């Protein structure tokens, strides 16, 4: 039983007189503990797919089922609750609250959920250790580097132990050294915490940390690659690059 399942997903945008088929019928599923990279050029529909999976937008057609819940049957408040408890988000621009410390930013989803933070102190400490920021728990975002800020954002996404973590270009705003660190961290989160993760990226290097790479083109899945656990990152990368060469330009 997949933790997330998308069936015949279609999303049509109206831009003036034009209609854009951002997603033209996508079937997609992810098992618990799986790490998937969604790849594709800009306009391929990868971000739209992420938004629909994350309950940030509603499909024109089709169905998203997350942890047994059909998102289209839920109203805004219910979907909000699903996001709060079942989904963790990581953004390109980190999006930390500047007034909150590292620790408080990590705890933000719990705060929003009205949880008693004292009961979660240990978990937060463990997470901070996991992302390597135990020493900087009292720092404000403007005292952290970009890479550190993104690590805070990852800890924030993990704090509710969500069914799935969705990351939209998590390395898009980082240099290569920090990018590697972030992808390694996500990989570890998957391996050590059995966290299900979907990463949207156009960077093949980032995608090489996933178990599976899904290529989108013109709103459809063009190709899927599954990697064996034993495969090294470099081997995965060359496979991805080769595949990318074989996928024609968008029409």
């Amino acid at each position, binding site marked *: 039983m997949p933790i997330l399942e998308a069936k015949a997903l279609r999303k049509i945008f109206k831009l003036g007189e034009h209609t854009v088929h951002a997603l033209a019928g996508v079937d997609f599923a992810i098992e618990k503990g799986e790490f998937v990279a969604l790849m594709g050029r800009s306009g391929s529909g990868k971000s739209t797919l992420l938004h629909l999976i994350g309950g*940030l937008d509603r499909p024109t057609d089709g169905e998203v089922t997350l942890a047994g819940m059909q998102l289209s049957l839920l109203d805004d408040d219910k979907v909000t609750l699903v*996001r709060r408890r079942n989904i963790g988000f990581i953004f390109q621009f980190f999006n930390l609250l500047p*007034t909150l410390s590292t620790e408080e930013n990590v705890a933000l989803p719990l*705060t929003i959920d009205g949880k008693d933070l004292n009961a979660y102190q240990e978990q937060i400490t463990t997470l901070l250790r996991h992302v390597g920021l135990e020493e900087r728990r009292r720092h404000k975002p403007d005292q952290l580097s970009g890479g550190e800020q993104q690590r805070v954002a990852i800890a924030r996404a993990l704090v509710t132990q969500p069914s799935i973590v969705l990351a939209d270009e998590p390395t898009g705003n980082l240099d290569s050294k920090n990018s590697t660190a972030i992808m390694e961290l996500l990989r570890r989160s998957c391996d050590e915490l059995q966290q299900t993760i979907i990463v949207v990226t156009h960077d093949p290097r980032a995608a090489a940390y996933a178990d599976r790479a899904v290529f989108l083109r013109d709103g459809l899945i063009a190709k899927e690659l599954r990697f064996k656990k034993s495969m090294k990152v470099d081997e995965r990368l060359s496979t991805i690059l080769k595949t990318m060469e074989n996928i024609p330009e968008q029409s």
Partner: protein
Amino acid sequence: MIQNILLAIRSLIARPLRTLLTTFGIVLGVAVILSINITNRSTLAAITRLFSESSGRTNLVVTNADLTLGGFDEGILYRISSVAGVDAAVPLIQSQTLLADDSQRNEFNVSFFGIVPGGLLVYGIDPAKDTLVRDYKLEAGTFLTEDPNEFHIVLVREFAEENNLQLGKSVTIRTPAGSARLKIIGLISREGPGQLNNGAFGVVPLDTAQKIFERPNELDQVDILAAEENRSPQELDALKASLQDRIGVQYSVIFPATQGKRVSQMVSGYQTGLNIFSIIAIFAGAFLIYNAFSMTVIERTREIGMLRTLGMTRWQVMKQILLEAVTLSIAGSAIGIGLGILLARGLIRVTEVFLAQDVSDVAIPASALISSAGIGMIVTLLATIIPAWQAGRISPLEALRIRGNSDDTIAIQRGLRIGTAFMLGSLIVIFLLPIPEPFGSRVNNMAVLGMMFGGALLIPASVGLWERLTRASVRRMYGREGQLGSRNIERSRWRTALTVAALMIGVAMILSIRAVTIAFDRDIRSWIDVYIGGDLFVFSSIPMRNDLQAKLAAVPGVDAVTPIRYLDIKRVKPDGETEPLALTAVDPASYSQVTSFAFTDSVGDPADFLAQLAGGDTIFVSSVLAEKYGLKQGDTLTLKTRRGERKFKIAAIVVDYYNRGMVVQGSWRDLKRYFQVNDASAYLVQVESDADETAVQQQIDKLYGKRRNLTIQSNQTLKSSALNLIGQTSSLFDVLAFIAMIVASLGVVNTMTMNVLERTRELGMLRSLGMTRWQMTKMILAEALLIGVIGGGLGLLFGLFQSRVVISTVNSTAGYDLTYIIPTQGIIVSLVIALFVSQLAAILPAARAARLRIIEAIQFE
């Protein structure tokens, strides 16, 4: 250029709400300035016209030197006529009376100057001569015949119609003897002299008037028509001098316009109040414009950065923003002028109530239109300069950068230093530097403003403190998401400071106004207790006969009766100049049976003071006068009397605010001896302790009310009507505070909208993390609540301070002796309003935040 203007218009249309807010700021300023300008002009014009038209072609007027001493002997007429250059001397006697019909008897108009009797103003004229100076427009019937003894009257048509009086029939009017019947032989229009007393006006032959009002051979005024060749200004000056010389100092020879001037002076206080409105409106408008344009610039940071990368210079960016301001100011001024004209109509009606005088609208002068529109444009430009400058400073890099928080640490530090300096400086000025009057109170007021300014500068540095102080209560109210919101207040600290300052000023204004009103209220209450002593106050709008005192005393249940006479007199200053004062004459013996004086700063036995007063050549002076001129017990004061200048010994200082405190008290004996006045303005009646006050009042009314045309009021009624008048005046100031609060609330709307806009992406992130719309609403409301708390708290602090300084200013400059009372009610009201306003104003921005579409928000930059 046209291209640029089109661009400016398009960018204004793209942000309709903001454009509306800015326009509102401009419209507010222009409309208020214009309407006040029109109102002031209309009021002055109405007063001047009234006096000039009612005096008609008169070149000079002769009156008694002390106007209220009443008439003078008509023998003077011949002396005046004999002066070379006088073409005609037109006699006039005037009297205020009432129709005998009961309906009008107790009618009084409450006006800005006090209580004026309603009823009918009657001029006694010499029909042959009067038409030389005044134009009566006859509408029906005939004018007065030359026979001076006919019992005829000519009334203003509207007045006649309102009172169902018909041409050819009789009308009965009240006179000292009871009543007189006059035949209505003509009706005139409400023009020229017909405008007097709001049209409640009539003319009767001179001799008839002297007869029925029991003033034989007396005149109130002689209007002079100069000979043709003597009408140049120089010639009139010469004629005035030679007339004055001829008839002596007990008469005044004046130009007719100066009568109007005296009234204008009285009106000027009211006009000053209105002008303060203008200034506040300009500030409020500028604040709104500034706020809205700052918001526009913040919102367009990226766009402007992009334009800069495309090669737009700083100056071009500034110019574009300023062009938008100019475009808007033209539209705003046009609307403002329209609204101002409408507003003026309303304001003129209010003025009419205050002045108890019709004020017809004047033609609106082009200069007023131009100046108000000009001020509107200049203020708009000035208010836009800072945002435009900020726009010019936007770096091209902004186009590429994600929006972060600008680092304003240095500015906050500077604010802290300058703010502290202002606060300390102001405190030193107020408490440690004794600056002598008349500068002291002004300096102190400036210091309070400086303190508020300093306080506003301290806000950015102190918001964190406020947040911690209120954390627990915000959390209780809005939960943990509320706390997230209130912590956001530490972000755009200067914007917050501006909004908080606006709220602070509003709250401080409410408080000061309340405090001053309460202090005045209490003080005047205690003074009225003394001033309107006894239980009943008996007065009439026509002269009362002296036998009334005995008659009143004989009414069953009456314990004692004492007469009072209010008289306008002049004091002679050491330099020989004169100054108008009021004299309250009392009969010390009966006065002490009914009521007492409130002595202050006086050493000795009150009974002895009264004995000295009864002895003659002695007066009491008010504390206001004593303060103003440094007068002490035992000093002397020189008054101008009918028997020349006389020195009066000051037996005691009393609390008395009659005539704004410019009053002295004298004895009945001196009144007769030196001012030759012998009638009472009012009688104070003390009811026996076991008698029923209402019953006695009714008994007096039954016996003499109608016959003697008396109004008998209980002191309770009188007190409440006097206090009512004070209430009306303070409500004018309440309107000011109300405007300040509205502007502050618009500031909150603006600031919170700006915050929401600026944090769109962050809000989107919170929504994607699972924050519900309601949680988001609470978060925004909590932030606004904190603005309300800080604004309310600081406003309270400074308001209490300001009200103390205001009261001590009033005490030291006007010589009042007000006691400061903490305005508990005002504190509660202003705090509740501040919090309520902050929440109400945040509803719109909160709704906007809650409605954000998440995907657009997280992609928003």
